C-alpha cells in the first residue's frame, strides 16, 4: 500500500528523498520504500519523518478505514 500522504507532504515541503533521508538518519532507499509501501518503519522513524516534514503521525500514517489507500 503506497504512502501517498508522505510523498505529497515531502513534495509540498520541497524536500527530496535524499534530503529527507539525511534529516531522519535513514537511506534514500528506505524513504523510497516507505513511500512505495514496501517497508513498515518503526514508530521512532515515523516520528522523525513527521517532525522533518512538519506533520503529525495522523497526517502521514493514519488510515481512516482499513481499506483506505494512504
Amino acid at each position: 500500500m503506497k504512502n501517498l500522504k508522505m510523498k505529497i507532504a515531502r513534495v509540498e515541503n520541497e524536500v527530496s528523498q535524499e534530503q529527507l533521508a539525511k534529516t531522519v538518519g535513514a537511506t534514500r532507499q528506505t524513504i523510497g520504500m516507505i513511500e512505495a509501501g514496501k517497508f513498515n518503519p518503526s514508530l521512532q522513524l515515523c516520528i522523525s519523518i513527521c517532525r522533518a516534514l512538519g506533520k503529525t503521525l495522523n497526517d502521514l500514517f493514519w488510515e481512516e478505514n482499513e481499506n483506505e489507500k494512504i
Partner: protein
Amino acid sequence: MKKFKKVVDERQELELYKIEHVCFWIMFWLLLGSIIIQSMFLNAPFTQWGFEWGIFMVGCIGVIVGCCRKGQWDFYSKPTIKNYLIYSLIGSGAFAIIYAITMYMNNPYFKGNLLALGALTAFVFAMLFALIFAALFITGSLVKKRQKQLEDEFRDDDQD
C-alpha cells in the same frame, strides 16, 4: 561507550539480520549433514570431524543460551508438551532411519539379521526420543520461566 557506530538504518539492519538468519540455518544444516556423513556413512575417525562437531556444538549452545536468556522459543511453535513430543518424534525418527541405513551398510552382521537391526534401531530410537524430549522439556521450562520473569519485570504496577 559503543566502539563501533552503526552506519545502517533500521531497514538495512533488519535486512542484514534476515540474511544472517538464512545463512546461519544453511550453515547449520550443512554442518550437521557433513558430520553425519563423515561419522556415520564414511566411518571417519573422530579426529577428522571433531573440530566441526565442536564448532557445531558451540553454535547450538549459543542459540540455546541466547533463547533462554531472552525467553524465546521458536518462530512457529510454543514450548508445550505436544510440541516437545512432535519434535522428539521427528528428531529421533530421522536419526533412527539414518542409523539403521548406516548400520546395514557398514556392518555385515546386520545384513543377514534384519530382526536384530530392527531391535537395535528401535532401542536407539527410544533412547534418543527420551533424550530429546528431556532436553526440550528442560529448555522449554527454562524459557517459560524466563518469559514470566521478563513479563514481571515490565509489568504495569497500576494494573492488578
